[in-house]
């Protein structure tokens, strides 16, 4: 006997994501899911964003990693509340892990939640965690061909922050080609070119982020 099911496999994850979204909306928290490959500069962008918005926005951070609490310790030095999630081998954050993290953060004291996903350009694209914005950190040394190789990730995000532009003179990277490909795969996406080392481009990114928070 055949039974028709037609159920979304990620439905259970999406339900908890909806609860996360509800909880954060109640406390007026704006959540950003930050995704990238390992070493693109997710933590550096988080740190630069905290510094750029100091005194303007109260920030909380959730750090997702397979193992270790190195990132959470680095972020804690900036004086913001932070929770580390260790996925223990899983390659992405899921909504139930965010639910646990939210229960351990002072939500009434947070306006902007930066959630750093596990370094990976494949799986995090598929798992909603209750975020308001999905952001991809790309970086110059990774090469300009990444949008072709990870179309789902590049198609899913609201903004792309291209990091390490201070390396453009030393690395073979076609910036115009990259921009064109990104706009083809995701016409609505916002593209920011930054260097976390020199601080170039961080201000426009931080300003845009603040504008998004006001729009909600």
């Amino acid at each position, binding site marked *: *006997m*055949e*039974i*028709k*099911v*037609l*159920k*979304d*496999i*990620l*439905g*259970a*994850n999406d339900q908890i994501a909806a609860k996360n979204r509800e909880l954060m909306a109640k406390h007026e928290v704006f959540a950003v899911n930050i995704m990238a490959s390992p070493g693109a500069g997710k933590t550096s962008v988080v740190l630069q964003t905290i510094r750029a918005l100091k005194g303007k926005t109260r920030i909380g951070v959730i750090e997702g990693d397979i193992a270790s609490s190195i990132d959470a310790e680095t972020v804690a030095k900036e004086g913001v509340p932070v929770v580390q999630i260790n996925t223990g081998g*899983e*390659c*992405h954050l*899921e909504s139930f892990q965010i639910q646990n993290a939210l229960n351990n953060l002072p939500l009434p004291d947070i306006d902007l939640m930066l959630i750093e996903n596990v370094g990976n350009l*494949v*799986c995090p694209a*598929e*798992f909603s965690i209750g975020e308001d914005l999905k952001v991809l950190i790309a970086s110059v040394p990774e090469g300009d061909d990444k949008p*072709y190789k990870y*179309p*789902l990730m590049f*198609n899913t995000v609201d903004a792309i922050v291209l990091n390490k532009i201070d390396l453009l003179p030393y690395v073979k990277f076609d910036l115009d080609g990259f921009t*064109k490909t990104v*706009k*083809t*795969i995701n*016409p609505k996406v916002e593209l920011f070119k930054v260097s976390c080392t020199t601080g170039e481009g961080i201000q426009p990114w931080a300003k845009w982020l603040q504008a998004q928070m006001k729009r909600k």
Partner: protein
Amino acid sequence: MHELSITQSMLEIVLKQAEKAKSKKVTKINLIIGEMTGVVSDSVQFYLDILTKDTIAEGAQVSFTLVPSQGKCRQCNQAFTLPEFDWTCPNCQGKIIDVTSGKELFVESIEVE
């Protein structure tokens, strides 16, 4: 690697439906998978074999219906299959393309005894 959590979620749906129908055994699971999700069928079957041990779905076969990545040109509305590289509209050479399919991840049906 995310096939493990996907297979777990899929199995939860399957077992719930099978229980509802008071079935004794699940013999087949029919999935609809969008090409763009990058879900690897061999990997799903591998995890399923482990996860279904001692459940009524033990030994169940998985069948995949792959949904090709389709797009629609925003300029001229032409629908077309998205090639791996270079998403250009074959009709008007437009470069702004909306993805219309290829992201699916569904349990379509199950076969039970």
